């Protein structure tokens, strides 16, 4: 079909490739077989160019580069970047939950130290019986192992459970500290979106 309108300019061809052709280009294309062929071939060329595979350098490439690069101003601090609001919120939740749990455990231990009789009487008879049975088993199991002068304090502790409470409190404190320390080593959830 013949058309009097000028053929598509290179900019108009570009606009077709980027899917925002001008109205003039669209109406011209509808009547011009020559430009239709141009646009079709252009799209095909661009498609094939975009589909070309990436060439991959050898596996030694990065090491080869790093061997000749001077890493400037070495620092010993860990790599840090600004935290995202989402990461900050997640960290706050973990700290609040951890703090409340730690406070509850410490409070319970403190109360038990100050009120040993009440603490022992607090448990139900069934729990007490179970506790006694467990304690007796531990005494039997440990007695042979700790029947040496150097472990006299262990023997005393087994014989008098109440003396173990400060040690248990200390252990609980150390455990809480370790948990807090571990928290800093734990990784954040990964965010894959690149800015």
């Amino acid at each position: 079909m013949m058309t009097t309108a000028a053929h598509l300019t290179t900019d108009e061809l570009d606009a077709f490739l980027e899917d925002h052709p001008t109205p003039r280009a669209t109406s011209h294309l509808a009547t011009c077989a020559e430009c239709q062929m141009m646009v079709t071939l252009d799209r095909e060329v661009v498609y094939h160019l975009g589909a070309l595979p990436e060439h991959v350098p050898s596996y030694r490439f990065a090491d080869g580069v790093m061997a000749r690069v001077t890493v400037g101003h070495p620092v010993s601090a860990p790599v840090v970047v600004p935290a995202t609001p989402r990461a900050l919120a997640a960290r706050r939740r973990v700290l609040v939950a951890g703090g409340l749990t730690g406070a509850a455990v410490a409070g319970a231990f403190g109360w038990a130290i100050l009120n040993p009789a009440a603490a022992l009487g607090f448990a139900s008879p069934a729990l007490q019986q179970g506790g006694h049975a467990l304690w007796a088993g531990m005494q039997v199991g440990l007695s042979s192992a700790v029947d040496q002068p150097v472990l006299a304090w262990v023997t005393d502790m087994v014989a008098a459970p109440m003396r173990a409470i400060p040690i248990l409190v200390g252990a609980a404190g150390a455990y809480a500290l370790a948990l807090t320390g571990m928290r800093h080593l734990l990784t954040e959830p990964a965010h894959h979106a690149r800015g």
Partner: protein
Amino acid sequence: MSERPVTDWRELVDQDVVRLAALGHEAAYRELIRRYERPVFSLIYRMVRDRELAEDLAQETFIKVLNAIDSYRPEYKFSSWIFKIANNAAIDQLRRRSLDTLSLDGSPHAESAEAIEATTLQVGDDRESQLDEVANRELGAMIEEAIGQLRPEYRNCILLRHVEGRPYEEIAEILDLPLGTVKTYIHRARNELRILLAAVRDE
């Protein structure tokens, strides 16, 4: 400002990684290499068409960029910077080797249709024999080969635009060329490939 350890490099933009590299973190250097080794190597390889040479030039590119990481200006895209160095390395090499700059489309500086025609090499017979030779190959491989036949000035433009997907403005920045020139080179390169494709279809 509150900070946290890097656990996933993919969440960082180039500027952040460059900043960490400038602070002396080796892992950041390696991340930049990981991000750009393939596109940089591909660009250079398609320019010089020699794998071993391309690997050397790509390494030189990274060494030059990473050793000057302190001088990086964040208002400039890192990709533009590294592609610029890579392109310069490839072009310098082509000049040194006086590699074939066979143009199917006349001088890149020719502005008028007459000037283009006057500077176009008469390669009709060669092109036909080339077409015969590649008739049975994959179209992609043929286009790859056709890119290699383009004038280097066209080649880097079309590679950056349609293989690496860089916008015209960034290509102008990378190649230090006016935007209009970049568009002209890309159109001429695409024109050549289009003619080749049409010829293959007509066979």
